[in-house]
């Protein structure tokens, strides 16, 4: 499809954002060449199952593919798998890859994602200290989760807690150690975090909050984990889920601005108008939240930004304005968050039969919603809250608090139509 005069579009990183961008270019009838380059050796796959079904499935798991080989080939997307991009020459508009080749681009998308933060402790390099980002990591973890082993999870974030739940299901004895005063950090309201913690404890997981780690000592069999208060935990395996670092090395070496990830504008363009970035690797200004610069590590954001960056490369001028949405599965229940709860200055609770559904308002405007419980009680209203946030609504707090008021009725178009 490409002509010699048009070097086309090159996408670095075949994860959620990069792959969605490639698919979108074809959905939008772009006829130039599209080259998708990924360091991993699999076809593009979804990461969320890695901490969930890939750990608990009875059968040996295979990656959940975003696009199969046939689909990519049919669409004329050149997929280079297991290939690392090693440099970008902005003046020449080429990228160099590890096999020595140099590829020209007219436009370039950086969709390099993030990598796990690693423990900087002596003893943390033992081979039973694991991280989880890739399918290969997921298999390594899965192979360790034998019935009855003792697993220590360092970090009470989403991934750590999902692994804890999965490991419990596999029959492991699980302890989660969180250095901060509570699990799940600032992005999740304290009330929701407390419910998640209670749920895990009731299921049989030990959660230690507010105590850091001082040492990990490798033993002939397993490791010993020492906490700041002197507690000693014996572990057959350790998994650290202590956050992710945006993968910015290429962008940095190419002289692009880094600001908590690769800095992009509303269209997801970097300082170089021929280079865009999307997904976990970038920070962008969000117009729904007064231009607040965000970097999200969320699956739908990566997907939506991949799509948006594709549009920008085709000439769209619009700013990315999708309201953040996130989910996490914990022991069969779901945690869902729309918007940014931490923007709020007021919380309104709707009591759904003992399950709190929280609305977060700022100066009366809805800026976030969060809930943890059965999917049937959570999902629909979170989705409607997302639309209310997007419409910059100032809903009546009394209506939000009243379970009898349907959120659909509060949507602006509907409210005026009714």
């Amino acid at each position, binding site marked *: 499809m490409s002509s010699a005069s048009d070097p086309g579009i090159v996408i670095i990183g075949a994860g959620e954002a990069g792959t969605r961008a490639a698919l979108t270019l074809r959905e939008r009838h772009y006829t130039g060449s599209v080259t998708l380059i990924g360091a991993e050796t699999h076809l593009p796959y979804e990461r969320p199952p890695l901490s969930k079904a890939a750990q608990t499935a009875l059968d040996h798991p295979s990656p959940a593919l*975003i696009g199969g080989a046939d689909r990519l080939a049919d669409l004329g997307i050149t997929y280079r798998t297991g290939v690392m991009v090693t440099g970008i020459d902005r003046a020449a508009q080429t990228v160099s890859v590890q096999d020595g080749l140099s590829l020209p681009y007219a436009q370039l998308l950086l969709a390099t994602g993030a990598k796990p933060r690693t423990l900087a402790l002596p003893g943390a390099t033992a081979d039973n200290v694991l991280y989880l980002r890739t399918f290969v990591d997921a298999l390594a973890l899965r192979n360790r989760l034998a019935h009855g082993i003792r697993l220590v999870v360092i970090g009470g974030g989403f991934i750590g807690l999902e692994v804890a739940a999965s490991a419990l299901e596999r029959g492991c004895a699980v302890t989660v150690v969180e250095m901060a005063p509570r699990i799940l950090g600032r992005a999740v309201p304290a009330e929701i975090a407390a419910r998640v913690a209670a749920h895990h404890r009731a299921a049989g997981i030990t959660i230690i909050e507010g105590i850091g780690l001082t040492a990990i000592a490798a033993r002939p069999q397993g490791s010993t984990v020492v906490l700041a208060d002197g507690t000693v935990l014996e572990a057959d395996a350790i998994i650290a889920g202590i956050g992710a670092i945006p993968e910015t090395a290429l962008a940095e070496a190419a002289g692009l601005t880094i600001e908590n990830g690769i800095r992009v504008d509303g269209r997801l363009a970097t300082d170089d108008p021929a280079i865009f970035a999307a997904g976990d690797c970038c920070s962008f200004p969000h117009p729904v939240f007064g231009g607040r610069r965000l970097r999200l590590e969320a699956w739908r954001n990566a997907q939506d930004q991949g799509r948006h960056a594709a549009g920008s490369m085709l000439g769209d001028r619009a700013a990315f304005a999708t309201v953040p*949405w996130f989910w996490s599965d914990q022991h069969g229940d779901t945690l869902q968050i729309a918007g940014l709860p931490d923007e709020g200055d007021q919380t309104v609770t709707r009591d759904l039969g003992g399950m709190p559904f929280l609305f977060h308002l700022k100066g009366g405007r809805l800026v976030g919603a969060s809930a943890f419980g059965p*999917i*049937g009680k959570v*999902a*629909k209203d979170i*989705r409607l809250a997302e639309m209310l946030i997007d419409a910059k609504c100032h809903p009546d707090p009394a209506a939000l608090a009243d379970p009898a008021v349907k959120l659909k009725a509060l949507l602006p178009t509907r409210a005026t139509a009714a």
Partner: protein
Amino acid sequence: MAQWINACGADDIDEEDVIRFDHAGQSFAVYRLEDDTFCATGGFCTHENVHLADGLVMGRIIECPKHNGRFDIPTGKAKGAPACIDLKTFPVKIEDGRVFIDLG
């Protein structure tokens, strides 16, 4: 051959909403659209195994509660990532205020 099954009362479903109906080991999602037409599709999202009756109906679209995959209700066509496999659809008729689904 048509095999009409009495699924529910028409009034059991709110306007622009969906309910779950199980029959003989199969599960369905039964919809009532804004214009008062009724539709039926397979109950589970084609992405992962989640029931669509917990999802949101907006116009002709059902959105999966788990990852917001979207389907066109009358045709079952997958309309939005991550859903890429269509839903099965079933003929529906209303008689005496009851919703019947043809499993034939």
